[in-house]
């Protein structure tokens, strides 16, 4: 009996720590917003200039995901991705979801200083769309529903200038702390006109 006691002691300590740290990343998670408006922005098509009283805002994002065969026990193709990888944008309550087709991409796994977060074989999805909206302050929520990831930022757009808003994914850490797209997007960095704003 006593010989098991030492082993159980270690297991108990491990379990206590597990429950202590479980969910530490959950704080601050942004809930998916509701789209209730339709008068905030219009999508630009065919390179037309912005209508009077609006400015153009180019939305760029690029994300790499594992191929459907990568994970043995997960959906071969997640339902959200069947007809394109969804990029979700909500500005001041108006929502739009763009579904982009992906391309197979195989890149080197690592360089001189270690693994590349996007190294290996996966599917590359690129978003590059332009919208027109009024200059001034806006509250933006950007989401990747297939990765259950949402982030928000407040921006202010100056008049008569085209703007570029970029979302750069930060992937989750894998073994030994190396970030890899195989584990999905965990946060993002946001740039407005090449200046990091989040």
């Amino acid at each position, binding site marked *: 009996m*006593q*010989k098991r*006691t*030492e*082993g159980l*002691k*270690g*297991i108990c*300590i*491990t379990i206590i*720590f*597990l429950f202590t*740290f*479980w*969910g*530490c*990343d*959950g704080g601050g998670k942004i809930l998916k917003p509701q789209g209730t408006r339709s008068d905030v922005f219009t999508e630009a098509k065919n390179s037309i200039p912005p209508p009077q009283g609006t400015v153009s805002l180019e939305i760029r994002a*690029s*994300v*790499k995901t*594992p*191929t459907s*065969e*990568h*994970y*043995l*026990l*997960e959906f071969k193709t997640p339902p959200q991705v069947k007809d394109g990888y969804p990029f979700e944008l909500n500005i001041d309550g108006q929502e739009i979801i763009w579904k982009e087709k992906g391309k197979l991409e195989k890149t*080197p*796994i*690592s*360089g*001189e*200083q*270690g*693994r*590349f*977060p*996007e190294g*290996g*074989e996966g599917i590359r999805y690129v978003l590059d769309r332009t919208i027109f909206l009024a200059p001034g302050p806006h509250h933006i929520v950007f989401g990747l529903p297939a990765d259950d990831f949402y982030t928000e930022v407040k921006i202010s757009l100056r008049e008569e200038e085209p703007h570029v808003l970029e979302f*750069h*994914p*930060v*992937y*989750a*850490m894998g*073994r*030994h*702390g*190396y*970030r890899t*797209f*195989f*584990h*999905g997007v*965990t*946060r993002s*960095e946001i740039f407005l006109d090449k200046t990091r704003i989040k």
Partner: protein
Amino acid sequence: MLYNLWKIVLIRGWFGAAISIILLSLFMLTPSASAGPPFITDDPEPVDYKHWEFYLAHTYTNDKNGISGTAPHLELNYGVIPNVQLHIIAPLAYNKPKGEPTLYGFGDLELGVKYRFVQETDTCPMIGTFPIIHLPTGNESRGLGNGETQFFLPIWLQKSWGPWQTYGGGGYWINPGTGNKNYWFLGWQGQRDLTKWLTLGAEIFYVTPPTTDSSHQVGYNIGGFINFTEEHHLIFSAGSDIHGDTHSRYYIAYLWTWGPPVRAGQNGK
């Protein structure tokens, strides 16, 4: 600095082995925490630059001499510069020889430096070394320490193919003490990502006799990783000997990984 450290490890290792080969050691009763968690076989991949790994772990080994292990041991790894990791294990060890009471106390401290000198490419595995030193901080008379400084000089290789990963290699243990012998460890491991949160794998290893009265050991472990979040993990393994004295063993640990965020495409460039 690292080169000098490497030189010291090498020089003192051989010197220590030469002068202490006749001293008493209870290696077979000494719990050893050295491993590439959750397996005994290690890999050449250091913790990412400026990243940390913290393990709160427990080991259990039941062999012909009794039961031994750690409860718990703390392991800390840090990526001090690209491709180099510093490593320490501080164990609280237990030892229960057959028919005797359980002994419990601080075990042998483990220090190491992992260095990757070949990067993985599509056709080439990554290659590295992970010299380790066991300092005799545990009480030898109670079976909680080796009583002598031990050194391990290995070479490890690793290769990935999508969701599959395999690593292994081997090294030479300098194991001073009367009745002790220097010995070789050879091991190989394979694992597969099953989901984003679950990876399972297995290893097989071979150890030449570490004492004059022991035999060759061939053992295996099956284990894996459960990722609760990107920072918090449960890792585990269990196994036995195919040929040798260990009836059963297991390893379980909580792993906390943290470090600065790196944007896609930036890491390593």
